[in-house]
């Protein structure tokens, strides 16, 4: 009887230790994967401030400057435009089809890398939904 109680208690301790170890392992993997897959959102000002890690892939957010969108002659599908946060701005190069919501004077999020010439090489462009989707007329009621 006493043996059984003792064995039960030992079992319980093993069980608790085992579950603690597995929780630790899971959390370790989660943190590792989180670190690897974080995409920072940076504005042009933040990029040039030097306070953030711009060596890895990150996301650039801001407004597409009016009149800055250009297609590169002779190069299929290459576009350049300028993203601004109204203090600083950065030139962006992108190869591919632009999304429908992409417009000048409208918000954009581009994910990609900073080039040596301090331009931004966009791998993917996600145009933002017009903050809250609502045509101009109704906004005055808010």
């Amino acid at each position: 009887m006493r043996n059984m109680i003792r064995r039960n208690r030992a079992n319980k301790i093993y069980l608790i230790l085992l579950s603690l170890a597995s929780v630790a392992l899971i959390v370790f993997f989660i943190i590792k994967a989180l670190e690897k897959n974080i995409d920072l959102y940076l504005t042009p000002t933040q990029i040039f401030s030097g306070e953030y890690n711009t060596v890895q892939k990150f996301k650039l957010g801001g407004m597409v400057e009016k009149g800055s969108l250009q297609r590169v002659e002779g190069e299929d599908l290459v576009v350049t435009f300028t993203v601004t946060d109204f203090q600083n701005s950065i030139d962006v190069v992108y190869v591919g089809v632009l999304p429908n919501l992409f417009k000048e004077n409208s918000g954009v999020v581009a994910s990609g890398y900073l080039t040596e010439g301090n331009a931004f090489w966009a791998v993917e462009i996600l145009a933002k939904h017009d903050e809250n989707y609502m045509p101009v007329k109704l906004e005055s009621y808010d």
Partner: protein
Amino acid sequence: MTDISVDFVGNALLWGATIGSFLGAFLSFLHKHELARRLIFLISVVLLTASAYLVIQFLNDNFSFLYVAQNSNVLLPVYYKISAFWGAHEGSFLLMIVLLSLSITFSNYFIRNKNQIMQSNFYALSILFLYLLFIVTASNPFYILSNPPINGADLNPLLQDPLLAIHPPLIFSGYVFYAVTFCFVMSGASGVFSKELFSIIKVWSSISWFTLTLGILLGSIWAYYELGWGGYWFWDPVENVSLMPWIAGTAFSHSLIYSRTKIMLSWMVFLSIITFLLSVFGSFIVRSGILNSVHSFAADPDRGIFLLGILSIFTLASFIVFFRSKDIFKGNWPKFGSINYLLLLNNILLMTILLIILLGTLYPIFTEVIFESKLSIGPNYFSELITPLTIALIGLFTFEQFLRLKGKVFFLSALSLVVLSTGVYFFFEQMIFLSLITAGVLCIVLFFNLFISILNHQTSLRMHKLFGHLSVAALTFSVLFNHNFSESVDIKVSEGDQMNLLNSKIFFEKVEIVTDSNFNGVRAKFVIDEEYPLLPEKRVYKVGGQITSETAVNSTLLKDYLIVLGDRFQDGSWSVTFSKKYGILMIWMSSFALLLSIFYGGLRRQL
């Protein structure tokens, strides 16, 4: 200057229902069951009237209603005017409350035994009361503009799709049914779990599971065909928020099977609480503006505080009931290698997946609130962590089917070898490919097992289980298949061009102009490999001027061809995205097979 006031009829109805549900909860608490039962019926009539009232405003284009003005338009087809009712946060919430009151009424109609339903009525009416309080104070659809606009702002064009007319209400129904299930579980936890109560819980949990699965699947199909980004799941916060209660609900349904043994009983109650809380979280957070995602069309962060308030009330109350219950904590751990043990392992795996999704979804919100740094978690976070766990899960239930067989030692060692090698490769980049092969092998094993069972006429009771598990394995296989092989390329083409891309011949035949009541657009015609025609469109909506692309998809069993129309260049050529997506049809088919097995599994108990 426009003033906003409250509409009398709508608000009177909502307040009436609010007071009624409070009274009803009170009456159930005092064991005045018959009175409460009548009140429940009355509340659902009142709430149905309120929603009918709002729908009528939509049909009449009454833009003095702020909600109608924001979400509808004269040009909108009639069926979208009706579905615009749940096009934004306020309406979807009203719909959810109506569904909740209706499900409570149905329960009361079918379950005549006072002891089974009285307790659960108390919980259900309390939930209804809090929801109604939320809607009248923070999410009221009945506001009136003194100076109404001539025309409304239109329903978001992305939402103008038949699938999207039914996807959100289905998700919400799933949430509501889980809330009802939760109320019955709570009534058992604060009283006794009788045999009848168990069968009620089983029926409700199957209904909820089925509805939520269908809702998520339709949302995924919508994303693939309507959003046209070539994907069906993006690990977007709003998608995750609906997946979490589904995973918890899956674990809950499985724990119900052996819930008569005590250890599984406590798990079952715990999982029911978790499922309910996650569904509350989901219903509040979608379209609340808290999540920064493709799904948040309107934003109002004030509701976040309400969300936290209600969520903490629910959490506190349900865990008080959980820990005060005497029955729940008796009993021993199940024996190693027994079916109960495997079930527990399955639940732990599912909970781990849940934890991963929860952290990945909440982490960006926390960092934004605390450190004010904006970031997002890439989809690789989810796929890297969840793939090996899912493979382990499939391995587990494949093993379970051979538990009674003599060769299980052999099978166990073969399986652990596979799992181990997956684990080793996890550290290298080969993971997806290896998981794909593992899933394929397990699929074949499960298929032969099903086949042999059918030959031996052993299936009548286990059919849903064998078939359901096979379809989960097949689903995993097709998802990995898609992930591993799909390709996409951007090109510039003119009318009449022919080119070879991704091992296919593409012919751009023509472009023509199309018009409809609420949009203008162009339609292009492509022919792939001389047999598959593709007709992508680009539309400009007349109200609001939003531009959308209608992706053209041509499905074959193994792969889909997709073309999205981009921009028109000055020389008349177009930018175009051409993709090959593998296994999409297999994904839908295995998902529907899963749905069928859930349906049969739930129905079987009633036959």
